[in-house]
């Protein structure tokens, strides 16, 4: 039971980060029906910028909390700039083009950003300096670290903040209007271009924070970290129903939990020696407490995509997405 709770805590932490990244995907999709595959790279850039600043400041011996805050503070504007230029120079010129064109462009932007990061930061792994003292708390038999608590609370705060922004402010109303029908929104006096650019910038700043969180959580950052994280967050967004903001949050959390529990238990579940008739068929390999594991925990990364496929087959509009024929 303790283990189950622990896997749940790990999964929720991971899922909260996925959710934040998934929000970036879903917001952009909701407004211009573009799957921005370069979003994962924005997360990576956020982590790399923050790590560079943090490593430099930590060497100067500043207090850890301040160092991380400054690092994040530097990452956010850089990512916002990346997000804005992405929209302005790569996607806006293709606004009226067939949907496939911006999609391919997004993949291109992703590759360009990744390789730029490689040129700037080299291929080496950057380690997070050991400045945050390890504080652990016991919770229902599970261990939760201070970093995990910060990540979880920050993610929920950001989700709440975003929900407020979208559903309670003028900008949010404009965003939703643009999402529903850009032409009519423009007739109503909404500056559609500005709204779209703002959406990208908000998504990018969320990505920057997610980058810092994921980097701090694992203690390492590298130029390739964005692609798999981005794909998983995309799977989370689809799981929740792409274009749907609460959907991305639910999808992210769910995916994190599925992944953690899956990686934690698949080895046991596919240990053929646990199943009587199979065990006797395997004979010697199972004798004396032996194991014959079909799928091990190295399949961890596969779960997100298995879930993605299942959702696409069984419920293409996602958990919370509504069925809109002309939009998918």
């Amino acid at each position: 039971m303790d283990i189950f709770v622990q896997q749940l805590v790990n999964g929720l932490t991971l899922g909260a980060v996925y959710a934040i990244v998934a929000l970036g995907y879903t917001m952009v999709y909701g407004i211009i029906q573009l799957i921005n595959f370069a979003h994962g790279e924005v997360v990576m850039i956020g982590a790399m910028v923050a790590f560079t600043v943090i490593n430099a400041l930590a060497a100067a011996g500043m207090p850890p909390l301040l160092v991380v805050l400054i690092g994040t503070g530097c990452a956010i504007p850089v990512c916002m700039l990346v997000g804005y230029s992405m929209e302005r120079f790569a996607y806006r010129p293709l606004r009226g083009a067939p949907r496939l064109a911006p999609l391919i462009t997004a993949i291109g932007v992703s590759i360009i950003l990744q390789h730029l990061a490689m040129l700037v930061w080299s291929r080496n792994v950057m380690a997070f300096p050991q400045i945050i003292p390890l504080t652990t708390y016991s919770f229902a038999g599970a261990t939760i670290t201070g970093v995990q608590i910060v990540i979880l609370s920050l993610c929920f705060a950001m989700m709440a903040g975003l929900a407020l922004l979208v559903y309670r402010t003028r900008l949010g109303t404009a965003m939703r209007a643009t999402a529903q029908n850009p032409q009519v929104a423009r007739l109503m006096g909404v500056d559609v271009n500005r709204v779209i650019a703002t959406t990208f910038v908000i998504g990018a700043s969320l990505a920057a924070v997610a980058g810092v969180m994921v980097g701090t959580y694992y203690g390492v950052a590298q130029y390739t970290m964005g692609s798999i994280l981005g794909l998983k967050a995309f799977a989370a967004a689809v799981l929740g129903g792409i274009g749907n903001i609460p959907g991305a949050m639910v999808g992210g959390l769910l995916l994190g939990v599925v992944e953690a529990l899956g990686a934690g238990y698949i080895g046991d579940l596919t240990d053929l020696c646990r199943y009587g008739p199979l065990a006797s068929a395997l004979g010697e390999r199972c004798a004396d407490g032996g194991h014959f594991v079909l799928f091990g925990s190295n399949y961890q990364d596969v779960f997100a995509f298995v879930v993605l496929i299942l959702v696409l087959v069984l419920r293409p509009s996602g958990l919370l997405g509504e069925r809109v024929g002309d939009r998918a």
Partner: protein
Amino acid sequence: MNKSKLALTLLAVATGLIGCGKEEPKKPAVTQAAPPAPPPSIEIKIGHVGPLTGQIAHLGKDNENGARLAIDEANAANIKIDGKDAKFVLVAEDDQADPKVGTTVAQKLVDAKVAGIVGHLNSGTSIPASDIYNKANLPVISGSATNPKLTEQGFKGQFRVVARDDQQGPAVANYLATAAKPKLVAIIDDATAYGEGLANEVEKSLKAVNIKVLPREKGTDKTSDWKAILTKLKGRNPDAVFYGGMDATGGPLLKQGRELGVKAVFSFGDGACTDDMTKLAGAAADGLLCSQAGLPPQAANKKFLDAYKKKFNVDPILYAPFTYDAANLLIAAMKKANSADPAKYLPELAKLDYQGATGKIAFDDKGDRKGAEITIFTMKDGKLSPIAIIKGGQTVSYEDYVKASAPAPAAGPAKDAPKAEMKK
């Protein structure tokens, strides 16, 4: 104008080349007739391959530095091969620790007509590349690839100067068994030829002394999230955890393990037995047990250590003394055969008896080093310190080993020996 200039240069180069070619057959006559004339020089290319980019680029650079130092020293020593001034050139390539890139780079070196190769760093890249070198009949000496399969393929030109995993695995497993006395051990690997191979050896040895081993857990050589696996392991409460993999993944593993409150003794193989562990895992690295498939770099001979420090301004990290020896072995064999032709110097290399920076080196029939040592380390206050040396199944504590071997060079001339003892 430009075109004619280019043509002119080409012509000049061509005549130069023809000139060189013509000179060769004449050479004996020239040297006999006029000895003071500078002897013609020959350029000998030696390849080095290791990951210079990617997660373990620091280890690749370390290996390359070792080989580079050997080459530079050989050039400074004015070695003559076949009567010509030998000029050694290091052709350093990057295989990104990726088996696919490894074979591409191997072919590149073959095409560049290198005379021999030092490398690769990883077993996973060395094994596929070895086939290419074998077809080209090129001698290869690895200073760090430990997977047994490398020298089990029956390739004549394949050598290594470090211990094999079927020596290292039992060594670290037995040390773990006697030092930590675990009842239950969890084994994780990174699904590479090296990590999995070493983990298998450790598992075999642990089971042989009746220690229970949990079903294998696996990550990849890029995994940074070990929490799910570690949480699962925590539930089984193993007394020790062994990881077969490199330091870039081992660091996060160790750090996350301690964060989750896993109390087990962590034990790593040579790929994760570096001082970088402190950077990657922080305070969590303390108490780590790990092994290196050779003598520790700080136990390499003083001459090498000083020269390395002087040239690169850093201390060797892991296998630099071994790649240094590997490059020197190639050069020594060429000297002995008086030829840089692989077909001629390969037989000499196989039967060489060489005193290198890492001690006496001779190869067995397979191309493995005879009597290779394995060192066990522990991490203490952010520094790896050697605690035991295992040679031929015998475990000796590091202090005893140093005591036993340190007076040896000093006591070289027999007369000095008693004096040295008196002083102590």
